[in-house]
Structures are given as C-alpha cells and as structure tokens.
C-alpha cells in the first residue's frame, strides 16, 4: 500500500531550539495514524509541517508525491484543497453561523448553486449529529459540539487527508467517545487518510491503526495499539499506564531536595 504522506530525515528548529530531529514517518493511504507524546514533544509541529504552515531546515515532507516544503504559495494552496484540518479548539469563524462555517470552504472553492451547498452542508452536519443546530452561532454551542462542527467543516470538500490536532482536549467523556467514533467512521466512509495528534491513550488506541510515539522531537516507539499496550519500552509503559515518574521525570531537572534543604550529601 502506498503512503499518502511521507516524512524523511526531517529537522526543524525554532532558532537554536531543536524541535524535531531526523524524523521518519509513513502515513499509508486509508489508514488512521496517531501521533502521540507528551506536551511540547513536537506533535503539532509535525502537522504544521505537513500542512506547509512552516518549513523544515532539512529533510522532506511528501504529500501525494509532492514535496510540501518546496511548493510555492499557489502550489501549497492547491495541495491544501485536498486536506482538511481540525484545530485544537475548532477555530470556527465566530461571526458566522454553524451552517455558514461548514459552507465556507464550499463557497470559496466551488461554483455550486446555493441549493446544492445547502444540501451538502446539511449532510455534513447530519454526519456529525448537528443538522438541527445549523442556525446557531459557535458561541451558542458547547466545546464538544464546536469540535464536531469543525470536523464537518474539515470534511466539507471530501479531503484525501484529514489532520486532527488534539481533538479530545477538554472534552467530557461522552463528547470524547462521540468524537473518537466520528473520526474513525469518517475515515472509513470517506476512504481518506487521517492523522490524529493526541495524548489521550484510551480513545486513540481504540480507533488508530498505527501509532507513533514521540518524545523530545524524536520517534521513540511505534506500532499498532495492541503491540504498544504490551510494549516494554519504558517511555511507552509510562505513557500508556500514566505513571507519574519514569523516563519523563516527575521533578523538573535541577538540584536535589536535600541540597536545597542543606542536608549535604543526603539524597
């Protein structure tokens, strides 16, 4: 099976601060691939590099055979028409209704008549269970519902690639389950490829086909959820079992407590 997205020898840094180094990842077509890891490990940066929002210092990001980091603005926009992205907090347009939010990409990129746009938008909203809320504004719905509207907007143009940035962050258990099922079902129904960035183990393992674990800008483990559940890798064990101490230390690095308390030498 060919890969829709390929990342090779990727190096990215903000000034002197290295964010990603020697990254190599594959995202096969039709699969739901999760990228997991603690806060600040570079997960979202990977999505931004795939979307061409930022450019790496070294290496390549290929989407559908095109090197994203070598495309000009017009090329990037052409490529992005085949992508959908869900932002962490939805990023809905607050001055538009839910209907107009979902209709936005259709109106911008197609010449479809308004009647057809209406039908398409209502179908997309029906898929996320919010058809009857289409007249409301984003400020009138809950965070979980806003996330689902953002999903409907992301799939408005039936993209080949859908990227989800922390779709479960801040959701209650019901909304979390609903969103997880939605991501899986949409991936299968649309035949698209999904990249899910998350640190929520339970929901992600329930729906992902393959998982990459990242730490400090590197891939530290990868495999199917079943393989990772029984992994003996210390980082994966700590992360999957939510252990407070391990390769990711509980204490911020620095002097020991005994040094700070003046108990010389005792630790």
């Amino acid at each position, binding site marked *: 099976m060919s890969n829709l997205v390929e990342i090779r020898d990727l190096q990215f840094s903000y000034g002197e601060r290295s964010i990603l180094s020697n990254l190599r990842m594959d995202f096969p077509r039709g699969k739901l691939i999760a990228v997991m890891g603690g806060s600040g490990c570079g997960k979202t940066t990977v999505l931004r590099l795939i979307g061409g929002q930022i450019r790496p210092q070294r290496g390549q990001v290929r989407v559908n055979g095109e090197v994203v980091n070598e495309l000009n603005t017009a090329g990037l926009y052409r490529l*992005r028409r085949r992508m959908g992205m869900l932002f962490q907090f939805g*990023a809905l*347009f*607050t001055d538009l209704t839910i209907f107009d939010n979902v209709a*936005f*990409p259709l109106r*911008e*990129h197609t010449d479809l008549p308004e009647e057809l746009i209406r039908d398409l938008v209502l179908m997309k909203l029906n898929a996320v269970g919010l058809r009857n809320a289409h007249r409301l504004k984003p400020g009138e719905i809950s965070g979980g519902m806003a996330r689902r509207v953002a999903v409907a907007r992301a799939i408005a143009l039936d993209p080949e690639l859908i990227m989800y940035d922390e779709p479960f962050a801040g959701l209650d258990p019901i909304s979390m389950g609903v969103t997880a099922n939605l991501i899986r079902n949409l991936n299968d129904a649309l035949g698209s490829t999904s990249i899910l960035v998350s640190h929520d183990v339970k929901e992600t393992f329930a729906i992902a086909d393959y998982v990459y674990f990242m730490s400090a800008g590197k891939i530290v483990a990868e495999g199917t959820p079943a393989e990772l559940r029984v992994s003996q890798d210390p980082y994966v064990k700590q992360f999957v079992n939510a252990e407070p101490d391990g390769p990711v230390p509980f204490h911020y690095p620095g002097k020991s407590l005994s040094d700070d308390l003046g108990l010389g030498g005792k630790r």
Partner: protein
Amino acid sequence: MIRALEASGRWTREGLESLGFATRAFFNLLRYSPGAFRRPTLITEQIHFIGNYSLVITIVSGLFVGLVLGLQFYVNLIQFGAEEKLGPLTALSLVRELGPVVTALLFAGRAGTSLTAEIGLMKAGEQLTAMEMMAVNPVQRVLAPRFWGGVIAMPVLATVFSAVGIIGSYLVGVKMLGLDEGAFWSQMQAGVDVNRDVLSSVIKSFVFGIAVTFTALFQGYHVKPTPADVARATTRTVVIASLLVLGLDFVMTAMMFGQ
C-alpha cells in the same frame, strides 16, 4: 557614549525594519485587492459595517463642532460687522480641515480599534490559520475587503461630518442669533469652490482612510496571539493612526493650499 550610539543605531535599524515590513504588507494588500473586487459583496458588506460603526459618533460630533464653530465665529465676526461671512468661514473650516481630520480621528478610535481587535482575535483563535489551511488567502478574503471598505467609507463619513457641521452652524447663526438666512447660504455658495475645497477634502479623507484602515489591519494581523497584545495593538492603532492623520494633514494642506 558608545551605548547611546548603539541604542540609536538599534532604534534606527528597528525603525527601518518596521517601515520596510509595513511597506511590504501594504503592497501585499494591494496585490490581493483585485481578488476582493471580484467579489464586490464582500466590500459592500464592509462599507456597511465600518460606516455604521462610526456613523452615530460622526453625526453627533459634526453637529456639536458646527454649533461651537457657529457661535465662536459669530461672536468674533460681529465685532467687525462681518457676521454674514459666518457661512463661508464655517464651511471652509469644516470642508478643508475639520471634516476630514476630525472624522479620521473618530474613525481611528471607533472603527480602527474594532478592526484591530477583530483581526487580532481571529488570529488568536486560529481562525486565520484555519482559513489558510482551507486554501483561502486571509489577506484577500479578510483584510482586502475591510481595507477597501474603510477607504471608501471614510470620505462618505467626512462628507456627513461637514454637512452636519454646516447645519449646526446654521442653527446657531441663523435660527438662534438671527443672521439673515439668505446671506448665510449665498455667501457660503460664493466662498466655497468645488475643485479647490470640496475635492481637496475628498482627497484628504481618502488618504486618511488608507492610513487609518491599513494601520488598524496591520496592527491586528501582526499581533501576538495573546489577550494582552491584542489590547496593546488596539491602543497602538489609535496612537499611530492619529499621528499619521495629523502629519499627513499638514503635508497635504501644504501641497494643496501652500503658495
């Protein structure tokens, strides 16, 4: 001494960098403007919104400025027996200077700050990034329609300000203080030249519209996405836009009316 030189060098370099950055942003805005004009409803919507933001404050301010001008001019002109010159004097003051300048200052405080806060909050809420990821250029879709909306609304608002101000002066001079109505209007008609005065007013307010609206959009678009920086950016909009308006007014007045 060395430190002072270093600091002045750094400020000069940073100032030139900022100026260059703003100039590039301005030409980028112009570059994507034809795309906005291909969808005129986006611009007419913004003329409506931006014009409405400032309409009430413009009318009220225009009326009071006109009332005060009428009173002050009358009290002084009557000492020389020249009270019939109230009409042209008020009209020239409003049309040439106060209309464009005061409207631009009000526009910066009302519509300018709204634009900066709106764009800044869109940026903070990742709405502009979301738009880019949907392959929609935010400069063309969001900034250009607002820019031209502001640029077109500004001369209309300045005209409203001047017209309401003249009515205010009429109310004081003619209705309250008993100046002859015919003298008021005929002297005004004779004293105000369409090309020299009215056209210069339109040109001034058009230039002020460019300066104020661009400043507001630039400050909003390049804000750091934090509540504190959005607040600072709205303040910067008022300060920079007001200074630009006053500076440009002097330059344009010298060019238009200087001998």
